[in-house]
């Protein structure tokens, strides 16, 4: 679905990604873990065209997108849910969701998005209850649901989630990840960036570990879960005992 080869990305003169290779398989959850500053968010920004990058990103059906801008990429249904949710604070929940349709609806389109809205509401009934509330007034978990729901309105073929668990209570996180798995089971290809390595390895099919802008380890999540290097560096020994 998505093939990334030798990807370099730059913040001004600083090289944040130093040649990364990643393959995202269709219909699977591919996960990206790594410590702070490893380049996870940068990688998603490079795919969505928000940062200067070189190398090769090939999307099934669309070809090379390395030289395309963010609008082209969003219009081709590769949707990035940014870290920190970035919902529109002064728009109601319903209007926030409507904004998500811009990439296939267009400014002056007349198509109806009632079906998409219905789907998102059935996935996140809480959003339906809060339909007319302004974005800023939602709780953190609801805001994350709204951010994901808004991305779903864009009818993505690849959904990229950046740190969906950030700043949420454990019970909210597990509820949210159930939904992410549910979205994936409906056939969505997901690229998930997570700091919560244990959770990420549980839900994903394939995992890449990156550090300092380079890929250091990759494999099926079920294998990595039991890999001694991963346990030591990302899961912690104490955690393993608890399990």
């Amino acid at each position, binding site marked *: 679905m998505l093939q990334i080869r030798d990807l370099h990305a730059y913040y001004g003169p600083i090289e944040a990604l130093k040649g990364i290779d990643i393959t995202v398989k269709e219909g699977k959850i591919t996960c990206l873990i790594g410590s702070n500053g490893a380049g996870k968010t940068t990688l998603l920004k490079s795919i969505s065209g928000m940062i200067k990058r070189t190398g090769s990103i090939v999307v099934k059906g669309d070809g090379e997108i390395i030289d395309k801008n963010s609008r082209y990429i969003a219009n081709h249904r590769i949707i990035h849910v940014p870290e920190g949710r970035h*919902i529109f604070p002064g728009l109601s929940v319903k209007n926030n969701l409507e904004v998500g349709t811009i990439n296939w609806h267009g400014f002056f389109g007349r198509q109806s998005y009632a079906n998409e809205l219905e789907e998102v509401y059935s996935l996140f009934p809480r959003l339906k209850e809060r339909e007319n509330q302004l974005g800023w007034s939602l709780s953190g978990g609801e805001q994350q649901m709204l951010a994901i729901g808004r991305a779903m309105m864009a009818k993505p073929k690849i959904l990229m989630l950046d740190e969906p668990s950030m700043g949420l209570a454990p019970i909210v996180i597990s509820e949210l990840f159930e939904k992410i798995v549910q979205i994936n089971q409906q056939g969505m290809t997901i690229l998930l960036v997570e700091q919560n390595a244990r959770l990420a390895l549980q839900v994903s099919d394939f995992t890449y570990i990156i550090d300092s802008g380079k890929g250091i380890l990759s494999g099926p999540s079920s294998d990595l879960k039991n890999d001694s290097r991963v346990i030591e560096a990302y899961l912690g020994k104490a955690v393993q005992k608890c399990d």
Partner: protein
Amino acid sequence: MNINTIVSLAVNGISMGMIYALMAMGLILLIRAIGVMNFAQGDLLMFGAFITCWLTVDLKLPLWAMIPLSIVCFVVVGIIFMFTAYWPLRNASYPAATVISTMGAAMALKEIATLIWGSLPRSMPPLMKNPATGKVAVLKIGSITIQWQFILTIIVGSVFIYLVFVLFDKLYAGRMMQAAAQDKYAAELLGIPTILTTMATYVIVVALASTGGYMIAPIFMVSNTLGTLQLRAFAGVVIGGFGNIKGAILGSLLIGVVEAFSTIQFSQYKDAVVFLVLIVFLLVRPQGLFGEKIADKA
């Protein structure tokens, strides 16, 4: 002071307030969309007055040709304004650069107007004339006389305010503009062409101010000092609660009415009275009429 004076001053004040409101709305739209306080707003009004005066007086165009042509001019001015005063500086490391450049734009607009149309004040015929006498048309209700120009200004101002509200509250495109204004990064990730929404904002802002200029032209002389009216709009914005459109409209109307009534006692001090109101508001209610909602709307 009899009822006659009160009514005509009130109508006068509200119609001036409408013009300030058109400018004030533009100020807030720009603050929300790109975070820039536009110090050229008054000079955009002045420029609009000159453009419409040129089309009506010099080219002698009838109204049906003048309106579409002036809209074209407003769009062009809006886009040029954006690509000269804002676009090159949007990523400047010094964030006030875009604000300061609007002050430069204000001077440039004044000088351009002087270069094209000369430095002498010009007069614009009233929009509604009495067909029999050729003088300013007035509405007479009993002993009360009101100039039609003021009534027309109130109508046009209300229509524009209504249209802006329809755009942002009811239309899909307006929602996209709001979204782009509130979070540019998220808007771009979803595929909103933020350059287009910014351009649309600039065009709307210029059209609002210029229409104000057109409405005010027959009341004042058209000259390059019209730009000073910007301070009234600014006072309206502050009184309304910085960042709130409804508040800014009410604040501007209040300024207009206070200004009109202050001419009874001290005509030459009406500017001072306007700012006295502003200072009182800053002392008593610094968050403005609708201030508590600023943080919410962000």
